[in-house]
């Protein structure tokens, strides 16, 4: 432990006043000071802390040994990771917050997209600077022999930025159509899934919303009103159109509401097997009409029963017990979506 501190100390002790250790210590000093300050001053001091940290790291990675250690042989050219490290720090300082860093929600897409171009600019910056004998760096136009390489270098970094943006485009699509996550992507030429597929189609959510809507409408209605409704539903399918509209308005504002246009509802009411009027069967089908791996729409189904229920109700100071028959809706949960899915 003592050795560790000693080595850390000797590592961080400036050999020279103008060295990266000076800036690193300034950065640590800013962080320590910032910890004791009110939020406004803290913001200013922490941005100084970031600034010193970036300068220190910049200086550090361009040190001779570090530069060779961070340079790797790619196929065509050598890749120096230093600019990437600096650029990531800059992006974190500008865009980032450490909240929710693990699930990447603290860092906005523009941050990721700008890492590569900023790294390219950092790497190419020395070519624009002429160091003269007076020790003041001067702006200069890069030498003609360097320009071709610089163009290729910058363009390749822009291409990497495009890949990042494409990743975010995919995220946008999956947010728009979350049911896609239930599909098999193995035939795709673009994406791979790095974890096994555990997602389910949102058909279940759609059907649950439909069930809730139906329950709001039918529960505690008198049985005769329900039977009238059932009779009407056999004649016209207005009820399912209404149901679909209600479900869409229920789910539209939730995550993935954009795909609600692609779910259509259909349903059928049957009497029980003996047509005794004892209860009624209700089948709700949600059909996914969006893109699928099998190129065909599929149906998720939910089975429900409408059962009469006798309610006893005795008024105070009355000996007569009033009875009333109301309907209750019971639905089976769509437990495992895959077993309920049937291909059309």
């Amino acid at each position: 432990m003592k050795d560790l501190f000693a080595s850390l100390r000797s590592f961080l002790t400036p050999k020279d006043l103008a060295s990266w250790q000076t800036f690193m210590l300034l950065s640590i000093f800013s962080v320590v000071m910032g910890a004791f300050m009110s939020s406004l001053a803290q913001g200013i001091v922490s941005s100084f802390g970031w600034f010193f940290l970036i300068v220190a790291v910049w200086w550090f990675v361009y040190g001779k040994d570090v530069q060779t250690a961070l340079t790797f042989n790619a196929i065509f050219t050598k890749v120096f990771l230093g600019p990437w490290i600096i650029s990531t720090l800059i992006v974190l300082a500008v865009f980032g917050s450490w909240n929710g860093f693990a699930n990447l929600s603290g860092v906005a897409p523009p941050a990721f997209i700008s890492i590569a171009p900023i790294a390219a600019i950092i790497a190419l910056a020395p070519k624009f600077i002429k160091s003269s004998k007076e020790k003041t760096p001067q702006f200069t136009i890069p030498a003609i022999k360097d320009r071709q390489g610089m163009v290729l270098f910058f363009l390749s970094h822009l291409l990497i930025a495009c890949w990042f943006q494409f990743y975010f485009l995919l995220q946008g699509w999956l947010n728009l159509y979350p049911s896609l996550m239930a599909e098999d992507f193995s035939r795709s030429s673009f994406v791979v899934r790095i974890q096994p597929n555990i997602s389910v189609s949102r058909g279940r959510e759609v059907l649950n919303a439909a069930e809730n809507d139906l329950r709001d409408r039918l529960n505690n209605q008198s049985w005769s009103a329900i039977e009238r409704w059932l009779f009407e539903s056999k004649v016209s399918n207005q009820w399912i159109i209404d149901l679909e509209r209600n479900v869409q308005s229920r789910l539209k504002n939730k995550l993935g509401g954009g795909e609600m246009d692609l779910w259509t509802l259909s349903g059928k009411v049957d009497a029980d097997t003996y047509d005794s009027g004892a209860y009624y069967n209700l089948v709700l089908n949600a059909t996914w009409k969006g893109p699928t791996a099998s190129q065909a729409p599929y149906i998720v189904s939910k089975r429900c029963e409408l059962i009469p229920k006798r309610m006893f109700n005795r008024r105070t100071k009355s000996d007569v017990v009033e009875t009333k028959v109301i309907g209750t809706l019971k639905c089976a949960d769509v437990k495992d979506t895959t077993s309920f899915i049937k291909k059309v």
Partner: protein
Amino acid sequence: MPPIINYTDILPLRAIAFQLLFLFMAIAIEAAVLNERLNLGRKLSMQYAATVNLLSTIVGWVLLFVVEPWLPSAARQLLVEYVFFGVRSVPPTVYLIGFTAFVLTFALKLQGIQFLELLLEKNTLPVAQEFIGPRKFQGRKRQLELSANTQPNRPMAVLWANAFSFVAITVILIIRVLVDQMNPIA
């Protein structure tokens, strides 16, 4: 701001792999054609081909990102289907888009070479190219003919280069679709 990244286990790795494959193919093919038709020398034609192909790839991506928010819903669904489930049906519009892409990349590459030469402060006419690199045995005679006749026609060369690389990429894509269709959908 709503969470933007919900589906971290979906990565566009195949897209990157195919992109790199197509880029290397296109650069190699176009460099060969440019070298043959413009007598630029191997290194120079390689650099030109690499630059213009990278440029047109990036412009293509940017175009996609700009156009995508304005796509009608049906077109976006087709795009999503292509990206996530592979190509299975090709409506005529896609051919049209392919042809437009060909014309646009041709224009872009031609323009790109011009910009590049401006940037590199090069003469637009390749002179004294004989010194660059050993040339192939049978190339010499033809090259003499060419230099005796006219100066090389650059737009034609770029058009041929573009055509060759597009054909090569299309062939690979067709093979990919055919192989895909041979495996039945599970």
